[in-house]
């Protein structure tokens, strides 16, 4: 897949545009924001439907409580802030007031992960997948590009119950055509191969594809899977990868503890045991820097992923030899 010519659109931008579009046909949609409507792009909805938009100010916990209350009145509520504050400040409200009563609140959080950049550790949310995945009744989606983000927003609006959508600040290449078949619970095979399977989500899908290209130059055929639905997760696609490739490497701009890697590991451990090597942030907070510098620092750019994959493939080959000897 040559992405050099692909248009670059941030998933937060696709979110804002698709939400404003949905507002036309869905009069039940109400949108909340916490003083970040320009950054989260809920401003598009606010401009089109000012009566169905409420700016809650810098008060995220209150916003999630208000969202729950609106949902009890039959509204489909989209609530946005940065991932740090939407899930961090308001986790208890999400648990008690949204997930326990199973309300129709969609938390669409932008500026997730390292690619926030210069704002640094206070703003680089690296624990949100874990925090949201652990909650009963919550669906967790991490779209890889603008097309998938728009599809995730439509799917969330259709879905009855709480949904978390993790979105990025950085502009990234558009990977998928308009007719990309998105569904909650489904992953996508983007590149076939049987030496190793890379399973990625969010901005890391592009990096994983580029890493597979680098590895192909070394003679390795690496499978690449886009896994936008972290919960529920596509168990069959994971098990097919485990059986056909013999090893899995997961890639996410998130703590390895509790994220995509652990979600994949849970399936593999129970159904189709093979080695699962998890790339992500290893038990540390972020720091200021450009997205490019930060991804490279954590080995989460294409070159870093390829280096880790080569090391894993070498170890596996050595183990295989030993096993045969």
């Amino acid at each position: 897949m040559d992405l050099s010519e692909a248009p670059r659109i941030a998933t937060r931008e696709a979110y804002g545009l698709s939400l404003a579009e949905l507002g036309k046909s869905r009069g039940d949609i109400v949108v909340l924001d916490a003083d970040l409507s320009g950054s989260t792009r809920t401003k598009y909805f606010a401009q089109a439907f000012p009566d169905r938009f409420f700016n809650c100010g810098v008060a995220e916990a209150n916003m999630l409580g208000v969202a729950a209350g609106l949902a009890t009145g039959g509204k489909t509520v989209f609530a946005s802030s940065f991932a740090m504050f939407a899930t961090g400040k308001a986790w208890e409200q999400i648990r008690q007031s949204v997930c326990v009563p199973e309300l129709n609140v969609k938390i669409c959080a932008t500026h997730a992960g390292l690619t926030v950049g210069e704002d640094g550790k206070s703003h680089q949310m690296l624990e949100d997948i874990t925090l949201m995945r652990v909650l009963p009744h919550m669906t967790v989606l991490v779209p890889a590009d603008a097309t998938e983000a728009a599809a995730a927003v439509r799917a969330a609006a259709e879905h009855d119950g709480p949904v978390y959508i993790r979105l990025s600040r950085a502009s990234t290449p558009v990977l998928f055509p308009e007719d990309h078949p998105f569904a909650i619970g489904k992953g996508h095979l983007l590149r076939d191969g049987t030496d190793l399977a890379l399973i990625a989500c969010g901005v890391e899908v592009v990096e994983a594809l580029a890493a597979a290209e680098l590895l192909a130059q070394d003679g390795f055929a690496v499978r690449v899977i886009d896994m936008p639905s972290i919960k529920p997760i596509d168990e069959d696609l994971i098990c097919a990868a485990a059986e056909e490739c013999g090893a899995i490497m997961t890639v996410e701009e998130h703590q390895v503890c509790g994220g995509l890697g652990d979600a994949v590991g849970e399936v593999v451990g129970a159904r189709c045991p093979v080695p699962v090597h998890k790339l992500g942030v290893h038990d540390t907070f972020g720091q200021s820097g450009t997205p490019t510098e930060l991804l490279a620092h954590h080995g989460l750019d294409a070159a870093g992923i390829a280096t880790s994959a080569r090391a894993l493939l070498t170890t596996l080959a050595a183990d295989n030899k030993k096993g045969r000897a």
Partner: protein
Amino acid sequence: MVLSKELKLEVERTARGVREDIIRMVNAAGCGHPGGPLGMADFMATLFVAHLNLKPENRDAPDRDRFILGNGHTCAGYYSLLAQRGLFPREELLEFRKFGSRLQGHPHRSAELGIDMSTGSLGTGLSVGVGMALAARLDGHGSRIYVASSDGESQEGQIWEAATAAAHYGLANLTVLVDFNNVQIDGHMRDVMDVRDLREKYTAFGWHAMDVDGHDVEAIHQALCDAKTESERPSALICHTVIGKGVSFMEDQPGWHGVAPDNEQAAAALAELGTG
């Protein structure tokens, strides 16, 4: 106590330095928050020059004063003050927000730099100030705890939990300085989510609360002196400021909350500040 002539001159010189540093730092970083700290420069300089007992020699002293920047996004001005007070070289300011820099996009606690608390998530600072004030009281030393906050931050519920606790514990050694500029990210605070009269609110919560012109260094000095004479109540200075103060095209403009001036704008700003 009146502000002596020499001290007043030093405060004014420091505030000018803060404003210049903010423009240079945010311009060099290509991102960051110039508006808020430009508006805070006068009251912050008064605090750091005439009141806060923090210098390179006492940075490790347990009984020195403490400072928390609750509205952590305004740290460009804070870093300039720390540098001007000698805690680290002023040249380092241009490393702001860069990969590997000690001057992170939002403050990170550092004994070396004299940064007493990590902030950046609004609403967290004042509670930590309550804890620091309790610790100082337990240890029986006379250090004072200063917390900067803002009108936007006053929308966070945690601020009011902290305010309740501070009054309940009678923390006279705690002072909050609220940057009240009627601006937040999405526009003017009164349009987005009006926090109304913060002096009345803090008073109702049991504080000694004062409205102050946040650009009048003598008035700020007087209010900080008044705070020191309190024996039972924490003090709140509601500092009325203009965001972007000193740079005409940034004044009262919500758009300059978190956007970096380009080279041309930075040159124009520095010219207005008298150092272009």
